[in-house]
């Protein structure tokens, strides 16, 4: 009983402290320190020793813009870097990435989601939303290509030296579900390899598939954990996981996935959306993409 009023007071004080912080506008990031009432008045700077005092100031909170970008999870690293670069040149803009599967994101767009930019790993999904004018159809641009590569755990438990070894009985292979752009590309690639390896190569590899994963990243994770002997992923995924061994797929059998980008018709921030698309297509943006193992859109 006796404790209760005290508790209420503490709660109220907390609420007041929380409420007070955003109200005081002039000293934005550093102002959080004085909110704790006990802080001595003049020593605000040392309270947050690591924070460089003025660099974050130019952000204008009043006109803060959040640019939402739907992007395939396979492009995670590259898109994150592009987003960071964009935020650097656009003060007050925060890029929020929604990383997922293109078919699922297409579905979300069709169900009324309105990000500002849509990046698709498959032409099919981009065309579907362009046809419904959910993205600006005449601004759809291919901007990068990704190719397939085989990844192996660092200790290569399956003793896989050549692509032909993937068909050896007992080897555990992970590929992506056929409904995903990469899964589809994997099947085409295996089919093409029939010509150079063996007529039943694809069939035998598919018999070794222990799981058709619902994304590229789960394949990378499970190969990193050594749960399977080999997995088929994008080159960019292999670049992002340098500890894994890779097995190149010959150019004539490899399948390119072309990424496309477009501003969303109902974008809340069409100006910034156009700027973001421009950055991705610019030489600087293309440079970022190539450091992540992506190839230019046109071979």
């Amino acid at each position, binding site marked *: 009983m006796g404790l209760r009023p005290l508790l209420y007071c503490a709660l109220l004080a907390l609420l007041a402290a929380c409420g007070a912080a955003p109200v005081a506008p002039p000293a934005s990031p550093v102002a959080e320190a004085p909110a704790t009432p006990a802080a001595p008045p003049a020593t605000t700077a040392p309270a947050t020793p690591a924070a460089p005092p003025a660099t974050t100031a130019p952000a204008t909170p009043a006109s803060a813009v959040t640019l939402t970008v739907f992007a395939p999870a396979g492009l995670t690293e590259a898109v994150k870097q592009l987003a960071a670069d964009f935020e650097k040149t656009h003060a007050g803009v925060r890029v929020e990435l929604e990383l997922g*599967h293109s078919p699922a994101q297409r*579905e979300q767009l069709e169900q009324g989601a309105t990000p500002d930019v849509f990046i698709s790993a498959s032409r099919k999904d981009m065309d579907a939303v362009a046809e419904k004018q959910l993205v600006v159809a005449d601004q759809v641009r291919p901007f990068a290509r990704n190719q397939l590569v085989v990844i192996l755990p660092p200790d290569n438990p399956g003793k896989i030296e050549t692509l032909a070894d993937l068909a050896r009985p007992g080897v555990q292979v992970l590929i992506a*579900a056929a*409904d995903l752009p990469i899964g589809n590309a994997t099947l085409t690639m295996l089919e093409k390899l029939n010509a150079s390896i063996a007529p039943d190569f694809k069939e035998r590899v598919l018999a070794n*598939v222990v*799981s058709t*994963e619902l994304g590229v990243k789960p394949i990378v994770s*499970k190969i990193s954990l050594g*749960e399977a002997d080999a997995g088929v992923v994008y080159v960019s995924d292999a670049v992002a996981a340098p500890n894994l061994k890779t097995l190149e797929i010959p150019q004539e059998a490899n399948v390119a996935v072309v990424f496309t980008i477009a501003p969303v018709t109902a974008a809340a921030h069409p100006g910034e959306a156009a700027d973001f698309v421009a950055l991705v297509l610019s030489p600087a943006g293309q440079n970022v993409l190539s450091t992540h193992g992506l190839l230019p859109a046109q071979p």
Partner: protein
Amino acid sequence: MNRTAYRRPGPDPTRTRWVWAFAGAGGLLVGLLGIPLGALIWTALTGAMEVYLRDPSLHRAVRLSLVTSSISAGVIMLVGTPLAYTLARWSFRGKAWIELLIDLPLVLPPLIAGIALLLAFGCNGILGRPLDALGIRLPFTTAAVIVAQVFVAAPLYVRAARIGFAAVEPELREAAAVEGADETQLFRYVMLPLARRAIWSGLILAWARAFGEFGATIIFAGNREGRTQTIPLAIFVGFETNLGIALQLSLVLLAIASLVLILLRWIGRDTPVG
């Protein structure tokens, strides 16, 4: 005096207010649960969509889901009952920790549960190498589906059964002891029958949770038709291709679950209150 006034029959204005308040609050929740399910069923039934229910891969998913969730429920009952009984009947050092451990899987996002299972029973997991020496490789097998289901669903059963056993009046236990019942007879003829209702409802919960399991399964067991692709996984794969497939599969999932739940309730309908 006051009590007689309180009990006097007749119109009670506070009663109607209570009824309305309760009905209103309850109605909100019923709406929150019912409207989305209704929307799902309505769209699946009325949407002009191709019918995918003939797809053999769907039949494999249904069969696998029924088999794995039933085995999981059986395993949970076999190992969960002794644990629940022990926790309800005796106190011992470390009991509170075991109780905490049983509750924790409930807060764990199933995806993390799947990762935890991989880290324990995966090929390079803590127990993976000893298991491998015995020739057992769990990931990507139907057994892994069952392990994942047991992991996420067992806590529901153990909690319910423990509460059921603990609710048996100590006087009844003592009476049985006075009559000369030994530990086995006490369990078999007193505790088990009296806790039956709680055990049964725990089993229903656990089965339902196992049947709908997705996150831990996709990580630990993977997604392979006929081997590890249960209905929830097939729904997710379907969603990637076509909303119609996902909706129809969800309808199948709901229909089967309703049937089984109704059946289970019917079987346990006239069990005595524990």
